[in-house]
Structure formats: C-alpha cells, structure tokens
C-alpha cells in the first residue's frame, strides 16, 4: 500500500520534469545514432571490429553509459527531498522510512527502464530502416542485461541518496563508483592483492584475485552478455558460469540500498 503510494508520487513528480525528458530524448538519439554508425562502419567507435552484431557492439558503450544514467536517475531520490523539505510532507503521512526508500527505488528503476525501452526500440527500428540485419532475440537479451546493470546503478545511487544529507556528496560518490568500476578496479584489485601478500605471504591465490576482479558489476554484465551474444568472452570466466555474475549484480543492487535504509532510519530530519 505505502510502496504503491510513494512510488506513484515519485513517478508523478519526476516524470514531468525536463531533466527526465532530456534523458529520454538522449537515449533515443544514442540508440538510433549507434544503429546508423554500426550500419555504416560495421562496428561502433571504440568497439572491436570483431563484433559481429549490433547487440554485441553495444556491450562496451552500454557498460559505461548505463551506469552513468543509473546514477543520474537515482541520486536525487531521497537526498533532494531532504534538502528541499518535501520529505517532511511524505514522512508526516503514515509511511515508514524503509517504505519511502524502496518506493523511490521502484519508481527510479521504472523510469530508467522506460527511458531504455524507448531508446532500445528506437535503435531496433532504426536498424531495420537502415536495412541492417538484426538478431532480435540476441538484441533483446543484451538490452535486458543492460537494464539489469542500469537498475543496479540506480540502486547504488538510491542507497547513497538515502544514506547522506548532502546534495553534493551523493552525486560525487555515485560518479565515483562508475569511475571506480570502469577505470580503477584493476588498480584496486592489485593493491588489495599486494597488501594481502605482504601480510600473509603465499595465501593469496589466483582464484581470490579472480574473485576480486569478478565482483565488479560492469564486468559481471559484460560476462553475462558473452553468454547471449556470439562473441567469445574477452575475460576468463572462473567461478562457474552465469550464477556468479548474477549474484554480483544482485549484491550490488541490494546491499547499498540496505545500508542506505539503515542510515536513513537513523537520520535526524531537521
């Protein structure tokens, strides 16, 4: 009951804003533009020429773009309401703080899915119009996986948003997670590895290192897509097949939100 009410109010408030409309338009242009480029070049800029399909070529750019969009959609969820004071209206009504966080998460995930769906449809239609061949199932599966990645980053930023009262910290920390997973993860893993090998000589095995690499949600997404596209994974696949990356995405979807709820429940609303 409460969840539905909170989600509906958040959807009404955000869906009518220009920012969201802008994201929707950008999404359509991105997918349609990428379709045009792929039709002409046979690959996407920065992608591998070995990518045999539009869906496979999208994996790499989506792995950067969707986490960013996810952060942008999720970060204002709670903190902007705390800063502006609308949260005082919402929390004067019979909603628990947990319901407020989860309701807003649902709303933001729905918005992200809506934007992606509009873009992905535009991309599909463009490909057909340009006369490229499309493997519909493969394309749909990559989009679904990309949506899971995006939802994960919406959840990360909603969790951050619930856990802080500063409107500048939250987007900075959110963008920080994207930088961390796209650019710095290798350094982080090697640092942890080096530190542990100094402390406990010899016990840091390869499988542990692989585990550390594997908890990166963007890598998890990339691994899952290699199962549905006809491209060989560019990374090794330890820790079994599909279940480990699925667990990684689920973990990143839920743990930051749980921490955010816990922090929000302790927070003083002044």
């Amino acid at each position: 009951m409460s969840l539905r009410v909170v989600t509906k109010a958040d959807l009404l408030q955000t869906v009518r804003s220009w920012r969201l409309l802008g994201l929707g338009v950008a999404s359509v242009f991105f997918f349609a533009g990428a379709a045009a480029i792929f039709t002409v070049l046979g690959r996407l800029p920065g992608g591998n020429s070995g990518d045999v399909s539009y869906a496979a070529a999208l994996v790499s750019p989506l792995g950067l773009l969707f986490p960013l969009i996810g952060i942008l959609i999720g970060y204002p969820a709670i903190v902007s309401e705390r800063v502006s004071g609308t949260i005082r209206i919402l929390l004067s009504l019979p909603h628990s703080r947990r319901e407020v966080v989860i309701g807003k998460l649902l709303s933001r995930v729905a918005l992200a899915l809506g934007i992606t769906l509009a873009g992905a449809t535009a991309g599909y239609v463009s490909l057909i119009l340009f006369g490229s061949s499309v493997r519909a199932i493969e394309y749909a599966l990559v989009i679904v996986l990309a949506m899971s990645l995006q939802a994960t980053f919406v959840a990360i930023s909603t969790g951050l948003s619930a856990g802080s009262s500063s409107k500048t910290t939250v987007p900075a920390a959110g963008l920080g997670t994207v930088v961390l997973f796209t650019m710095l993860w290798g350094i982080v893993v090697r640092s942890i590895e080096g530190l542990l090998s100094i402390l406990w000589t010899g016990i840091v095995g390869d499988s542990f290192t692989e585990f550390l690499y594997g908890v990166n949600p963007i890598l998890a997404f990339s691994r899952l897509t290699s199962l549905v596209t006809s491209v060989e994974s560019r990374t090794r696949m330890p820790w079994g097949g599909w279940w480990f990356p699925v667990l990684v995405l689920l973990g990143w979807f839920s743990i930051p939100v749980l921490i955010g709820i816990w922090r929000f429940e302790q927070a003083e609303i002044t």
Partner: protein
Amino acid sequence: MPSTPAIEFRDLSKRFGDITALQDLSLTIEQGEVYGFLGPNGAGKSTAINILLGFLPPTEGQATVLGYDTQSESTTLRNHLGVLPDNYQIYTQLTGREHLELAADSKGVDPDLDRLLERVGIREAADRKAGGYSKGMTQRLVFGMALVGDPDLLILDEPSSGLDPNGAKEMREIILDENDRGTTVFFSSHILSQVEAVCDRVGILGDGKLTAEDTIQGLRNQVETESTLTVTVDSITDESVTAVRSLTGVSDVHADRNQLTVHLDEGSKTAVIQALESTGVDVRDFTTEEESLEDLFSLYTESEVQST
C-alpha cells in the same frame, strides 16, 4: 476514568551536540483540547514537534502520541495524525488535488476532495501544479492535507505563517470546527494573539524549558489583576515608602528621585495615593499601566530573548 493523553512528553530532553534544544520537558495534552504551544523563534517548539512526528529521536525521556511511542510506533501513530509541519516544501510538479490524493491514498481513505479543497479555499487552483502556488496557497494546501481522513489529532507548526489576516482567521475557524468534532489540536506559534482566540490552554516555551502553562483565562486573570502605578511627588521619604509597601496587594515598590513605581497584584490604587498623602507627601501626578498578555509572554520568554 482518564483517557489516553493525546500527547505526552515525559522528562524529555533533546541536545544537538553542545546545544540543548529542549530540557526536561514534561507536558500532557488531553484529548479534545486545543493547545497552544507558544514561544519565540528558536525556543524549541519545532524540535518538540519534530520529536512527535518521529523526525528526531529524543536524547532523554519519552514522548507518546495517543499512547503510541514516537520512536517505535511512529508509522502507526501517523495514521491518526493530521500534520502541518514547518520547513516543508510541496511537490512542485504535482497539482493541489494530487497532493490531497497522496494524503488520502497514504491513509487509505476516500474523502470528498472537492469539498476539502473548497474548505481550505484552493478549489479554483486545484488542478494547477502546486509549484506555482503562493506561500499562502501552499500553506492552505498542506493544511488541507492535514485534514484528510478526519484525524484524531492535528499537529500544526506555525499554521498561520504565510497567511494574510483573513486567511489566518479562516484557518482558526476550521480549527475550531475540527475541535467541535472531537479532534485534539496542538499548534505552535510565536504570536500570542493567534493562540489567544482558539486555545483552551497554552504552554509557553523559553530556552528549551516550559516556563508557564495555564488556560487563557488563567493567564488573563493573572494579567488583569496586575498593574503598575507611577506616582510623581514633591519628595520621597522613607516613611512614605514604608507606608505604601505595607499595604495589602502591593508586590513591589521602587523609588527613584521624586518618582515612585508601585506594582500591584490586587488592591486599590486610591489606597496607595491616600497612604502617601497621609505621610505628608504632596502627590503631583500619577499614571497607571495595565499589563497585557503580550507583556506576560515577553516576561516568560525574556531569558530566551536575551540569550539570542
């Protein structure tokens, strides 16, 4: 048999770091009352209300609303509440009607929204986005949200802020109507005259402490019997001061050159003049000054005013 109090603060203190916002607040509001919570800005009124709403935990002590603990049963108790908080912001993209729907859906009720919009005076603006509302309209809208679902208790934080005198009067009338229906009303204000017209009882908060609590009539009685008499004479003698001081009803006498200031709890001013003249003093002039409720309010909150 006494019913569950509508609101109860028990030895409640709230500190923010080194700053004490509330100290040992004990206060009981019975069901059916209209209670005015008075004090200057910064006295701790909003902190107390924020604790009732579960926005803040108390540092010490406990608060209950309709018997529910404000910490552990906050969500349940808010089902029975209508709230006009302070420092709020409405959802700019939602219309007025959608705000009331939000309140109704949250409480699981289905009120006649048009009637409610009419009642708080924003029927014409109901389908416009609330982001374009004036401060007064916004205040009416949130007051309307508070009325949704006929709550048992209305908690209103500075309800008349942003309203013109007419709007404030309309709001007072609605508060009295709601009270007639059996609703308890707890509202804060820093302006005494707004409380005076509707409250059964008032509590005055100064510097985080409850400095006075009485009925409006009680406060008025206290005020009406108090007055200050200033007498100008040719010269003041010790004998004349003693004579005045010995009169019943005189609470304080202060002499300054040829002027005598006499504070009276009760008793006659004529008796003071006669007592002076009987000691051989020549009375040249005298003025009297009645204390107003405002003076009393200032007196109770003075320490707060000085410390800020």
